[in-house]
């Protein structure tokens, strides 16, 4: 066990966990932040996507010991009331079916738009292909990303 001080959604949190513990389980089990989802545990499905210093990472494969002073943002930190352009676009297009993968999809989308404010269809496809949706909402995700891109400053 080791003590870590993590900056999550603008708040510094103290935890005492095994250094190998993935951020996913730190968030879910230790910080009671279940918005970040467990899907595969091997960075193959994207359900656990969070931002590390603004870049999308798969939190199931990111050990707490590797985070250091880097800043973590989760779906709860995108905005608590759904006002982030990506959240608004997701609501506008009523993207979700079961909804389980969507927090990971939105975190990937938000990271994409941060680096590439006006992505082409192909760029969206490539960037988002790490996030699986068994309900098959990919078409709406793409439309929502394009809508969010329009409101991007």
């Amino acid at each position, binding site marked *: 066990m080791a003590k870590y001080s993590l900056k999550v959604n603008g708040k510094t949190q103290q935890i005492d966990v095994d250094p190998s513990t993935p951020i996913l389980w730190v968030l*879910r089990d230790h910080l009671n932040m*279940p918005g970040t989802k467990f899907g595969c545990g091997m960075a193959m499905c994207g359900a656990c996507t969070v931002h590390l210093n603004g870049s999308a990472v798969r939190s199931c494969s990111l050990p707490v010991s590797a985070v250091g002073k880097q800043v973590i943002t989760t779906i709860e930190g995108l905005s608590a*009331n759904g006002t982030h352009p990506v959240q608004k676009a997701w609501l506008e297009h009523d993207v979700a079916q*079961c909804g389980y993968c969507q927090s990971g999809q939105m975190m990937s989308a938000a990271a994409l738009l941060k680096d590439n404010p006006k992505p082409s269809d192909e760029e969206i496809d*490539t960037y988002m292909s790490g996030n*699986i949706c*068994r309900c098959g909402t*990919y078409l709406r995700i793409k439309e929502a990303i394009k809508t969010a891109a329009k409101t991007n400053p």
Partner: protein
Amino acid sequence: MEYMKTQSRRSFLKSSALSGGGLILSFTWLSSFKSADKMADLNLPEQWNELTGYIKITPDNIIKIMCPNPEFGQNVMTSLPMIIAEELDANWKNVVVEMAIHDNVKFGGQFTGGSQSVRTYWKPLRNAGASARQMLREAAAQTWNVAVEEITTKSGVLFHEKSGKSANYGELASKAATIPLPKVIKTKIVKDFSIVSKSKKNVEGIKIVTGKPLFGLDYRQEGMLIAMIQHPPAFGMKLKSYDASLTLKMAGIKDVFTIKVYEEGSERGAFETRTFNELLVVVGKTTWEVMNARKKLKVIWEPIAETKEILNAFGRKQEEITPTGLESTIAQVEKMKEYAQKPAKLLRKDGDPEAAFKNATQVIERTYNAPFLAHNCMEPMNFFAHVTDEKALFVGPLQAPNFAEQTLVRRFGLSAEKIEIQMTRMGGGFGRRAYPHYMVEAGLISQKAKVPIKLIYTREDDMTYGIYRPMYTATYRAALDANKNLIGFHVKGGGIPENPVHANRFPAGAVDNYLAEGWEIPSNITIGAFRAPRSNFNAAAEQSFLDEVAEAMGKDPIEFRLNLLKRAKENPVGKNNDYDAGRYVGVLELLKDKSGWGKPENSGKKRGVAAYFCHNSYAGHVVDLVMKDGQPYVEHVTSVIDCGVVINPDAAINMVQGAVVDGIGNAFYGALTHKEGATEQSNFHNYRMIRHNEAPKKIEVYFIQNDIDPSGLGEPPFPPVFGAVANALYKSTGKRYYNQPFTSEQPKS
């Protein structure tokens, strides 16, 4: 306007005052179906179609509607309340929806599956909404001392035009609670709908996009521990002995023990599965600690013995044998070829098929195969349980709480009143969560550990546990005469461990000489319902075959189907045809029109069509396929669905588009194989799921506009995708693909 009696043998209403003022209206409706449409593949007996629920109207004008059925992405939490709100003439903005807890007295069937939620609740919910509206009108008439006929409603407000009086529903709800129940009510006509058939956003949308704890895996309770199971590494194996000494030394680990999911020799009830019985359990403080400690278990496994048990479900009682042995896909394929040659069970026979084939000028015979598939719900199986000697609480994702409760009553020896089941939103279901073994496991672990626990499956646990879409094969034969007329049709299908054939579906009824047969091979690999069970294979095989026959006859694929359907409509062969040929025709005609069928294809883009009937609805697709870097890619899809009245069009389009994407993914990539009993795929690195870049650019969805009572939508659009893809692939490559997944037959670029 439709008049309904509210107090018949099959329905009743009950109203009462809400404490603190307001109205609560409870209702029960026993829905009766013809045997042919009884839950399609489940053959559920009629008593399971008792539907009840309630509406609350509070003095502050909040209309609270409980959603009786579990939500797994089919959008029932929005669509079912819309039906009530429509007949109530409520203002949708004042409607608050909550997921009901499991209570089969208050809420009846509560079954999410078989694409039945909207279909079964359509009439009872309309009836309930219209009754409440009628009582509110009566309350207004009494309060204002005017004739009830003069009271109108609009969007949650009662009006008396002559006197200019008005009041919202909340203001008169307490008074309405004193009004006797209406004996006869009027429901709206479809063209007057203002909520139903008008798109409404998902009532849980904001919770989903802000990451609120909605799912089973998100549930937690103070003092709760985490549990994981270790199941045998292969089907046909069981636990012999184990050494947990290293595991128990790991940080955070509380206990290691075994549980038995079922009592050996006990009857197997509905949705009960017998995959693995004795399971090794690790209980600890946190998920990561338990995951790691489980890896340190030293376990010795041994082969199972053959077992015989009684399946007692859905009115059937039969002996079932679970064979011993470690099965491999390669050997299974060979065994299926062998069985396909043996005599099979006769399922349907019209005319004289033997003579037709004997007299045929040309016989076309083709065999189609499909592998096991894993459901791969994005949320792996999990459940919370707290079981004591006195009572039990279960919280998590499940599709069939009533059936689960029966299983829990039997396994835990507690009466149903002592078992509370709370249903969370499900991260996908697709049939998988109708099987409550993981609830039983959670309950047994809690009972033994004497603490509240949450059982979590890893992806690997989930994918290798069984309850798969079965492995299927079907051989189709068509007999053509010298004029290339179709004079005989024969389907002989089989599977491990289930026969897929729907003997009374199209083209049964359209061919004079028709034969359907089926066979089964028992297995210790367990299976379960998977989005449109059996149909998801049949549509692929049959719709491919129909294209092959059409080609041999020199006919256009859609014209060929329409000719057969014309025959089935005008002069059907046999009596038990499941489908309505007219509605089938409607789908194909509109599909032809909307897809621009028959227009020349450009050089790279090839089109395939398929249409299928299942779960009381009709669906067809035309897919446009191109080859990209030597691999097939479906670029554009046109879909037409006849599911009667569409409740929530935008969500319905989403559902159809999703079914198309899911269908393409499974047709191209889905496969689960076995070697020496062990599942060869365990996670998304070796079980390929369709991804963003593989989804079509556009999926156009059209619904047949009619006033027919709504039928299923979650499943019907899925099966024909496989057939349309296969037919487009043939046109594109000149090669017919007989084995799913189709990319397994595709030369690697």
